[in-house]
């Protein structure tokens, strides 16, 4: 079994996530896209841990940590989005340009 299919899948997932994060208007979808990219990274970690030049458990444990942190991040992100929706009445990321001021 070679590493290539895993890495290819991870690359495709990352690219989809990147595209979504940069182009979608809806903040929820942007958040989901970011999760996609994170998962692509997790996939890479596990693939290298199993088939890399130095196989070991560290990569797998690291991906577990990553999943936990991502869950927390999503919770915070959703909370921010809900508050934004309550205040501004929109989830469109193009309206969220207060950094300009």
């Amino acid at each position: 079994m070679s590493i290539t299919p895993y890495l290819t899948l991870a690359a495709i997932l990352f690219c989809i996530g990147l595209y979504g994060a940069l182009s979608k208007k809806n903040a929820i979808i942007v958040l989901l896209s970011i999760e996609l990219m994170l998962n692509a990274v997790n996939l890479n970690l596990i693939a290298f841990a199993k088939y890399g030049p130095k196989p070991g458990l560290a990569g797998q444990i690291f991906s577990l940590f990553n999943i936990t942190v991502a869950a927390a991040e999503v919770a915070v992100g959703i909370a921010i989005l809900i508050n934004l929706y309550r205040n501004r009445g929109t989830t469109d990321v193009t309206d969220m340009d207060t950094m300009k001021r």
Partner: protein
Amino acid sequence: MANDFTSYAWLVPLFPLLAFLVLIAAGRQLREAGAYISIVAMLASFVLALLIFFERLGHTTDYTWNQLKWLTIGDFQLNMGFEVTNLNALMLVIVTLVSLLVNIYSKGYMHGDERVNVFFSYIQLFSFAMLGLVISVNVLELYIFWELVGVCSFLLVGFWYFKPEARAAAKKAFIVTRVGDVGLFLGMLLLFWYMPGHSLDFSAIHNAFSQGKIDPSIATWIAILVFVGAMGKSGQFPLHTWLPDAMEGPTPISALIHAATMVAAGVYLVARTMDIFQASPDAMLVVAYVGGFTAIFAATIGTAQNDIKRVLAYSTVSQLGYMMMALGLGAATAGIFHLFTHAFFKALLFLGAGSVIHAVHTQDIREMGGLAGKMKITAWTFAIGALALSGIVPLSGFWSKDAILSAAFEHNQLLFWVGLIAAFFTAFYMARLFFLVFAGKPRSDAHAHESPAPFTFPLVVLAVLAVIAGFVFTPFNGWLGHWLGDHAEAETANWTVMILSTLAGLLGIGLGYVMYGKNSVSRDIVAGNAPWLYTLVYRKYYIDELYDVVFVRGLRLIGKAFELFDIYIVDGIVRLCSAAVVGIGRLGLRLQNGQVQTYGLATLLGLLILALALAGRRFFHLG
């Protein structure tokens, strides 16, 4: 003898300076008090100047104090200070006295003007500068004050800046005198270069030139250049054009600056540096001929002008020409004496003219007439001034003019006749002025009445002085000449000159009387028979037009070329720079739009470029 007061001569210019500072700092709050502050400051200066003058009466040695270090270059050190010679003491008295009277007069004349305190502050600044000029210890100090009086003249000529003529006249006065100032500056540089020890002190100049330490050809150059400066300030031909235009300023200013004091600064400068001129006979000749030509040239123009102040202005130019002529002939005492008497009677005439203008609200003498009955004091004092100017015995003008003419009679017959004819024209235009303004019937409906006391008091004082000031230096009493240290001039009564000059004066007055007083000879006798001559004189020999064509247009053309260069090349480069900066700014603005996705994209692109660069390094070996 003690120098009790003389050692405090530096206080004389300081009083007006203090008044100037007070007025400029608190002018608006002071209101009426501004005039009184000025008068008190000037009175203090006048009293001190008078005390110094009396203290100097027995003296012949100069008092010099020059301990103020001004600048040190290598071994050379320039000190400032003040110097009191007998000539300076006399000038101090003239300047402070006329300035005091003009201050009093201005209180009446400028009453109601909302910028009256600004006016007084300018007068104080002028008095400070003029007095400083008089007691300057070296040429550079004199030059600084010289420019300062020029600035004050500019400010005061343009005092009514809302009148376009006043603005133009102020600019003209500034620019034309600047031409002369450049000459003085060059002369000063030459002097600095060739003087032993690079000293610019007047006493050092006196020693160096009177002992012949300077090459005569260099002395000629220095003298001519200094004289160019004097020409600009004293309105000598061909730099006289600014002085008549300067009459756009308030009348007290015309009396103070443009008749009695500042324009005499040129004469004073030549008298002060007389040693340079005496080292060079050529320069003396130039001074004498320029002065003589100016005297007759301006006197003829004066006969055809219709503005009361312009007639007097041309008369001033002409009289300054007389003074220059006297200096050029080596008769320094006669020139200074004429300056002394002229300061009084010309200030008197200008203040009288101001009183008339105040009463009838016009300056055109063709619209005046018959004022003698309504304005008795003005008419009488004006008559005294006019007679003094015309050189009638025994008024002051006669003695000073006689001193100049007898010097000319001895040294240069041509200039004597020029001066005599100029004296005739002087008497003629003064008679014309007097009879048109004060005699005959009123030619307008203005209800003229005598001016109040602030007007008449200075008039009376000046009239008394115009009568008696001449007796200090007559053929029978050479006191002034001895006191000024001019031993060469043994004044003897020259009856030929006296009779001829009196005849010229009487003839001029007589002709004026029959033409404008009795009307028995038609006034249009010249204008009718030789219209070209009348037009030529009326248009002031087309000097202004000539300058316009020769200098003003050419300079405008050069200015236009530079303006185009400025607009298209200099401004173009500046605009290009600003456009580039604005373009970069626009780009930055589009990046900084607050959209997190745009930032993300930029980050991605940056990362890609970085990755490409890292990858490319392997192929290109760029480091």
